[in-house]
């Protein structure tokens, strides 16, 4: 996604090496994707579903979808 748009930053973080930082997001099962510090997705999702979930951080752009989304713990 970062390749497609300059607004996207995509980080891969090795959770064991950055245990303190990972704890902030309550990382237990991996992969865990945290989006704009607002929502998180656990596990690997098919592309279309992943994008749909990720874009929920921008409710205006997705037309106000609501869905079951795990929120990130701080």
């Amino acid at each position: 996604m970062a390749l497609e748009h300059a607004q996207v930053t995509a980080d891969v973080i090795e959770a064991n090496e950055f245990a303190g930082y990972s704890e902030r997001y309550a990382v237990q099962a991996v992969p865990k994707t945290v989006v704009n510090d607002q929502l998180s997705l656990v596990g690997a999702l098919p592309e279309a579903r992943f994008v749909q979930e990720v874009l929920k951080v921008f409710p205006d752009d997705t037309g106000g979808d609501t869905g079951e989304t795990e929120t990130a713990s701080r």
Partner: protein
Amino acid sequence: MSLLRAEDQAALRARFAQELEGPVRLVLFVREPSGLYLPGHDEPATGREVRQLLEEVAALSPRLHLEVHNPLVEPSLARQYEIARWPALVILPDSDGAQPDAAGRATGRIRFFGLPAGYEFATLVEDLIDVSRRRSRLSEGTRRALASLRSPLHLQVFVTPT
């Protein structure tokens, strides 16, 4: 002693020769670029391993250019890439005249924190190839969905080596 086995190096070299197109910058931030491990420092030894691994990878293609920086010696550079923890690798297309956007970026940013081992090494290789080709393998639907993006989107994927 190499981190990559000889047969893996050969396979990667061949793959890069075939699939890499434009040049790629690998911008690595490690605290001890000299490779010296200083007892008492809290930075794990992965800094040395990451550097060695990336040196081996970059040596496999003339299109891969590795730069190593110490974030403590070059804090403004670390700030420019918004690097707050390390070791950290930023993968960028080598400047090819791409026009930056309002935030001064020409493309999105791909970064790896920690040692890209196991499955993540495969991810790293795929990312190098994709950046080199300046295109992703996403579907048209995804590209359309992203086209209207106006605000920053920060994805942090936490992984463990498998």
